[in-house]
């Protein structure tokens, strides 16, 4: 009932390796099935995101042997030479594997600390594996625990509470001013990378109308198609600034494209309806002096970056709290695992003892041939009773042990003392 994990992530592997070892949904199913069919794992789950590819499993034999076989399988599945892959792979067993998964689901192991998407990806991977019969009692329990940890960390800590990218900070600021953005209008000036990210986030929030302005009409048409917006010819500021609630500017220009007088006139025309200006251009696209205009909110790249920096620091302060939650659930899982193991171990022990008893009696009874069958039966029953009594006390002690560490130690000791070659229960 041990757990093995073999995988790689953004910390151990460069993107060139990660993209070669990533799994599509179909590939994940295929790999999980093959791993079970080949007897490498009894239970299997493949978790593959843009930043990680990991295989979780319950091996039938020794975990370390299974980990080796799993690594070999991964390299052959993705046609990557083992020597090229192995430096990027990490192997975790039991406690460390559990802890790793719980940290992953809570966002502690993510490239963007506390990101929310990973919990959904873990949930989806589990759902797929469960519906394909890849998971059994151990992985079911493990992944249900991981989802619980993820939810708790998000609800009880600030780890995922604040925006962590310039684009999301800009959109969150817009929400501070306007509330929900699904009835709002946005104007996009130019086509910088961060500007595109902001637009993508605005689209995710179902912004009602999107307008695009660009010096090049051709480029503007292309952007409008890409973003699903409408084009406003460059320079028609009176019209353009009357429409939007927020303006995202990332124009490549040495001089500001939005001047104070232009915006001042526009604000008068729009009866001072609040206007959020996000200047993501370098050099700046919007005259900084218009920040003091009534009901105008102006943020440039530095402002948004500073917000992200503050938020990152705030998230980092939450790591110890999140780690505590992870540790609590790791202990809970291991305790469950140990309890299940105790039951299995005692069953194996009981079977073994009965076998020994049967063998012992077979040898001795030849010398005691004068006993009648009823007497022999009685002796067998008495021996069974004695052996059961002998087993009862350690069993109760094992079950009643409060300290998880001691419980696991006792299970190991029992296994070492009474079972051959650390026989698995």
């Amino acid at each position, binding site marked *: 009932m041990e757990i093995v994990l073999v995988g790689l992530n953004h910390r151990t592997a460069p993107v060139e390796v990660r993209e070669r070892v990533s799994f599509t949904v179909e590939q994940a199913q295929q790999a999980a099935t093959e791993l079970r069919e080949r007897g490498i794992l009894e239970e299997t789950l493949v978790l593959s995101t843009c930043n990680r590819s990991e295989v979780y499993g319950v091996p039938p034999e020794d975990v370390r042997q299974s980990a080796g076989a799993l690594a070999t399988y991964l390299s052959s599945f993705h046609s990557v030479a083992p020597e090229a892959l192995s430096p990027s792979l990490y192997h975790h067993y039991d406690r460390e594997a559990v802890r790793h998964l719980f940290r992953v689901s809570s966002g502690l192991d993510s490239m963007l600390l506390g990101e929310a998407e990973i919990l959904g990806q873990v949930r989806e991977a589990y759902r797929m594996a469960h519906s394909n019969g890849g998971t059994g009692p151990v992985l079911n329990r493990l992944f249900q625990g991981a989802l619980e940890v993820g939810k708790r960390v998000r*609800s*009880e800590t*600030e780890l995922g*509470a*604040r925006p962590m990218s310039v684009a999301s900070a800009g959109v*969150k*600021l817009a*929400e*501070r*001013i*306007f*509330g929900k953005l699904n009835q709002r209008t946005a104007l996009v000036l130019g086509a910088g990378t961060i500007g595109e990210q902001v637009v993508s986030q605005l689209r995710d929030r179902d912004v009602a109308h999107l307008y695009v302005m660009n010096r090049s009409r051709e480029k503007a048409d292309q952007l409008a198609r890409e973003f699903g917006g409408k084009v406003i010819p460059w320079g028609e500021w009176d019209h353009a600034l009357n429409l939007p609630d927020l303006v995202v500017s990332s124009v490549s220009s040495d001089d500001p494209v939005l001047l104070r007088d232009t915006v001042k006139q526009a604000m*008068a025309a729009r*009866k*001072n*309806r*609040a206007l959020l200006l996000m200047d993501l251009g370098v050099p700046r696209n919007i005259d900084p002096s218009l*920040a003091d205009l*009534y*009901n105008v*909110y102006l*943020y440039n790249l530095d*402002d948004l970056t*500073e*917000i992200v920096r*503050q938020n990152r620091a*705030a998230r980092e302060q939450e790591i110890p709290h999140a780690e505590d939650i992870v540790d609590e659930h790791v202990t809970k899982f291991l305790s469950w695992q140990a309890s299940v193991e105790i039951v299995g171990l005692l069953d194996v022990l009981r079977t073994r003892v009965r076998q020994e008893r049967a063998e012992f009696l077979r040898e001795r009874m030849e010398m005691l041939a004068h006993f009648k069958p009823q007497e022999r039966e009685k002796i067998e029953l008495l021996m069974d009773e004695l052996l059961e009594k002998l087993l009862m006390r350690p069993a109760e002690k094992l079950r009643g042990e409060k300290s998880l560490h001691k419980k696991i130690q006792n299970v190991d000791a029992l296994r070492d003392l009474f079972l051959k070659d650390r026989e698995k229960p």
Partner: protein
Amino acid sequence: MECRPFENSKSYRALQATTVTQPTCRVPPGGLYFPLTNVDRLYLILTVVAYGLSLSSYLRYLVTGKDLAGRVGTILLAVGLCAHYFALLERSRGLHTVPYHDLYGSLSLFGWLLALTYLGLEVFHRQRSVGAFVVPVVIAFFLFSHLAPAGRIVETPAKGIAFAFHVTLSILAYAAFALSFVLSLIFLAEQRLLRTRHMGAVIWRLPPLELLERMSQSSVIVGLVTIVIGTALGFLWVDRLQGTVLYYDPKYLATILVLVLYAAYLFLARSAAWRGARASKLCVFNFLLVIFSFTAVNLFFSHSHRYF
């Protein structure tokens, strides 16, 4: 609130001749308004504890953003409202009169109606972040009304359904205006933080600026409607009582001014260049006028109003 005794309801001269400085007092001087029974104390403690815990939950929600804390805050506020209601009821029974016959009773009722209005607004707008700012005001009014030094209760002919609605609706209007005042202050503070780019942890928990404006306007609408009805009922009650309407009580002037300024706020906040911070500042100013009307006008200028 207390209406001046109308010793001769047919004559305004007689009305003017009476003063509240010579009331009939039914409680011992120097003590509380009325002797607190164990039940009164129980409701007093229960109300303070519920409001206090509600405030703590709302603050937790504001700082951590945990939904559970916000929900607990709402539930505890509702519990506090119930306890506060029974505290008011017991107090009225003890005094054998409505709770607004004295300044402190009317302040307690004001606090209760403020909490009630806020709860309604919270449910309507599904926004809990404001609770942390409103509940302290409710607690302050409740404690002030119950722990302040003794006052005197005046025997008055102020009774009847019209009078009760007149007073209750007027105090409800003041509570709604108080709520819009708090919302406007939050708006101004949040806008300042946004414009000066001083983002802390709390700003991500506060309601959006536009929602604050909408909530403030909703609150002012409640206040305007109730004060109009309440004032009309007041005239009706006075008319019935003495057969004539008084036109030159300074309280009427103050009330009309409050009405006009809040109507102006509603108009300016929605349609003109004043939308945003300017309208919020006007709202803050209007409430200062309400406080002036509630205190100075009532106590020093009004002939027929004392405590609301």
